């Protein structure tokens, strides 16, 4: 009985597959042929203080010499100046692919895209993305690129739109065979590029990872982001001189009110977001927004609904990111029950510096890389924003620093008898000690979680 059931199930699935809307083989082949020349790989070398690694990810030609890739390929946690030797790899039908020197243009975290430009002018064939909606039941195609181990061959996948989900970022779910690898273009039956395959965590982003060359086929992504979400990046891509500057209001720990909370507060049916924490002196604090305030309107309009309450903060944040520094936005908030809403106008400022752009210093004999303290460090540690010190960014394996018990993310506040105010001070103190006593042990005061620790590091003699 069990045995016959096992065979019965796939038969049903096949029958369902046959009933789906499909694209004629000729039309599909045409899309494949047109998209293939626009698929390239982007390569760079990630060089930190002690390691070097080549990374290759998928890219899409969006201008004659401009390539767009997923932000994950150039992870925002990698400091910009550690990414070197950018290249755009252009596969050829036969023979070795062309390697074209390129310049990193920057990331756009509003859309989760990043851009590279060829150093010399090119005449590549761009893909033109359009804000065209695929409805449930519509067939969609995606053309992806196989890994280096499969010679960057492009491949076609066909599926059908199954549902449109809101999420923090809008997502379209497909059924059927699935989509090509993360970052591949998605096209409709007319061959219009309408979206990009979302990052799929069960699949790597890199085309030179030593995993199964066909992993992208055996475990396929099923979500794509519609073009409407990222078109603004292509229209105005970042350049090294003009990076995307992200705005912020200085409000963290937002929570979407679920149905029960909304009802209890007399807000039935209204999407609402509660302010969990307001950073002192940040734009929202200056404008008078307070912890506990419940945001009901943004720029005079009710908040956009999500599929569930927990998506509301993400949707609001996503929306906010699309405003420019210096612009003013308005939140209408409920502070006291049964009182009229308060309108609070917040002028957007630039986001505080983050770890990837923090200055670094490498104390080579200790195998210790420290970096500048940034807002996120003090916030995560529940320390006042005035906190001084430097953060342990990295330790060389088996180094003196590591064997002394120093750990990544430790906050160093003292070096021997001196207070470490910032990275420049650390470097100065360290060099002064080393000049006089090249091999002397150093004593650091560090903070880790809730406690401090005094750590003595004995450098190799």
């Amino acid at each position, binding site marked *: 009985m069990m045995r016959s059931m096992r065979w019965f199930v796939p038969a049903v699935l096949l029958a369902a597959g046959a009933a789906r809307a499909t694209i004629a083989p000729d039309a599909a082949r045409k899309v494949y042929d047109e998209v293939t020349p626009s698929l390239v790989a982007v390569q760079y070398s990630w060089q930190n203080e002690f390691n070097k690694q080549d990374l290759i990810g998928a890219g899409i030609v969006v201008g004659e010499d401009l390539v767009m890739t997923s932000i994950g390929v150039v992870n925002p946690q990698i400091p910009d100046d550690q990414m070197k030797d950018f290249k755009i790899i252009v596969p050829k039908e036969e023979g070795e692919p062309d390697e074209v020197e390129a310049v990193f243009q920057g990331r756009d975290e509003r859309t989760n895209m990043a851009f590279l430009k060829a150093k010399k002018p090119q005449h590549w064939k761009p893909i033109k993305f359009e804000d065209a909606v695929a409805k449930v039941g519509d067939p969609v195609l995606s053309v992806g690129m196989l890994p280096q181990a499969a010679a960057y061959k492009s491949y076609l996948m066909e599926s059908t739109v199954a549902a449109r989900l809101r999420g923090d970022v809008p997502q379209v779910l497909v059924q059927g065979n699935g989509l090509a690898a993360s970052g591949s273009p998605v096209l409709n039956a007319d061959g219009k590029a309408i979206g990009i395959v979302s990052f799929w965590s069960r699949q790597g982003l890199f085309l030179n990872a030593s995993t199964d060359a066909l992993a992208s086929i055996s475990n396929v992504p099923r979500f794509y982001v519609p073009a409407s979400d990222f078109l603004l990046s292509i229209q105005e891509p970042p350049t090294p001189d003009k990076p995307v500057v992200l705005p912020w209001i200085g409000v963290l720990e937002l929570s979407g009110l679920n149905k029960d*909370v909304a009802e209890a*507060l007399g807000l039935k049916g209204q999407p609402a977001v509660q302010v969990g*924490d307001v950073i002192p002196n940040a734009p929202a604090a200056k404008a008078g927004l307070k912890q506990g305030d*419940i945001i009901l309107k943004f720029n005079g309009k009710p908040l956009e609904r999500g599929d569930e309450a927990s998506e509301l903060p993400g949707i609001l944040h996503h929306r906010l990111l699309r405003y420019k520094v210096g612009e003013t936005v308005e939140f209408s908030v409920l502070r006291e029950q049964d009182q009229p809403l308060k309108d609070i106008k917040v002028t957007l400022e630039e986001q505080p510096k983050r770890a990837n752009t923090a200055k670094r210093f490498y104390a080579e004999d200790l195998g210790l890389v420290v970096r500048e303290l940034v807002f996120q460090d003090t916030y995560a540690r529940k320390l006042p924003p005035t906190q001084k010190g430097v953060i342990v960014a990295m330790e060389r394996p088996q180094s003196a620093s590591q064997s002394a018990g120093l750990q990544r993310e430790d906050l160093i506040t003292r070096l021997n008898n001196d207070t470490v105010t910032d990275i420049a001070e650390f470097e100065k103190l360290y060099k002064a000690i080393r000049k006089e006593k090249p091999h002397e042990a150093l004593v650091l005061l560090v903070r880790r979680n*809730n*406690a401090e620790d005094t750590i003595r590091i004995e450098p190799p003699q």
Partner: protein
Amino acid sequence: MHIDTTSVQGIGERTSHSISTSARRKRTRAIFAAAALALAMAGASTAFARGGEKGEGDQPYPPATPKAVVEVTGRIFPAVVRLDVAQEVYADGKRTVRRGIGSGVIIDDDGRVLTNYHVAGRAREIFITLYNKERVHAKLIGDDHWTDLAIVQMDMDEIKQKKAEFKHADLGDSKTLITGQDVMAVGTPFGLARTMTLGVVSNNERTFYPEQMHIDEYETGSFSNWIQMDTPINPGNSGGPLVDLNGKVVGINTRGGGQNLNFAIPIDTAKEVIAKIESSAKEGKKGKVDRSDLGIDLKPLQDLETFYSIDINRGVLINSVDHNSPAEKAGVKSQDILLDVNGVPVNVRFPEEIAAARKMIADLPIGTDATLNIKRGKENVTLTAKTEKLQGAAGEEREFKVWGLSVRELTRTYANEAQLDDTQGVIVTTESPGYAAAKAELAPGDVIRAVNRKPVTDMDEFAKLYDASVEKKDKVVVLDVQRGRGRRTAVLKVSYDE
């Protein structure tokens, strides 16, 4: 070195439960083996003769001759028992029990039994099986998680009625133990009653500094070093005696590391705890050990003497000062060198000396001023800190059935570890699936700061607000909750249809 923590609960069901090493505090996680609890049971055939004081004939470190081993085994067995315990724990928003088995040793003719906290602490129900296989009821007199000890009273009426017989064991001295000395462990490993194993003291001042040990959420092992021995012990041995070849109890078998690395609590530590528990236990009130706290983390000064320009073997490094602690209020800072407390020198050069220094502070009278003589840079400063009663991170836990959750009192220690600004509120620990708290998506670790906008100062206030709300049959309860650095409103939709 890493040692696995395994404590066996519910031997009958062969489930194993690991003693939690939730080392939120300070250090890399220590993984330790708690020598598991098995049933040790004492039978009595041979007479048990010796008195409490050191017998004239006792040798300093008698050898395990075949004759001595057999004789001592015969004498100690009638004093060793098996404990079957239902310990109070909270799970799924409710107070419930966890069953386990351990060993214990009878310490007087009134029927008091010494065992581990992780065997009988927080016990709601205890059965003791004597050496002659009679089983009697017992109740918890008092416990102390800091030293992992508990004292249990056997039901003497039941013993008389059943004509059960037992002997008590004599407590020896652990300070005279020397490495290499022969010792025996007695207990009920894996439920195998009346098991004796033989070995030697491998080390008499074992410390696991800087690791911090825990039993579930409760800190332990801070105030004394361990006896390390190679006598095989296994889950179920916990709480049983480690005896010398004079037949005197020198330790309580507590943790096992496998591979012949096992650890016992020195009996000198236990003797002090027994006295304090017995003197504080009242009818209807558990005995306990109160200690003082200054809120400082100490660190050995080894290799740091030159840096701090101090004499070798002088002082101890103040490694960290807890937020809102007496030391912080007194102006103590990290990297101060503490030289004396109330004129008594505190010298910690090696990790082995940490426990004694901590104990010295713990032994200060609670709520009194302690004068701290401190070296700070080139200066000497004298600070005065008022000692506080030592509290663990895990405060009192209670169930609130109608709302479907259990919460803990927020102690200063917990607030410091979780980096909360103050101790206002209670901490959510567990939730009953399908009940109001779970539906409101409260998470373990959330701090409930207000109920229907009335501030929750502590557990009693929370209980009052709960009682009032349940009395009124509130269908909707609005909570102000802190999660991480953020605040949020949560709503309990309470049903009373049971």
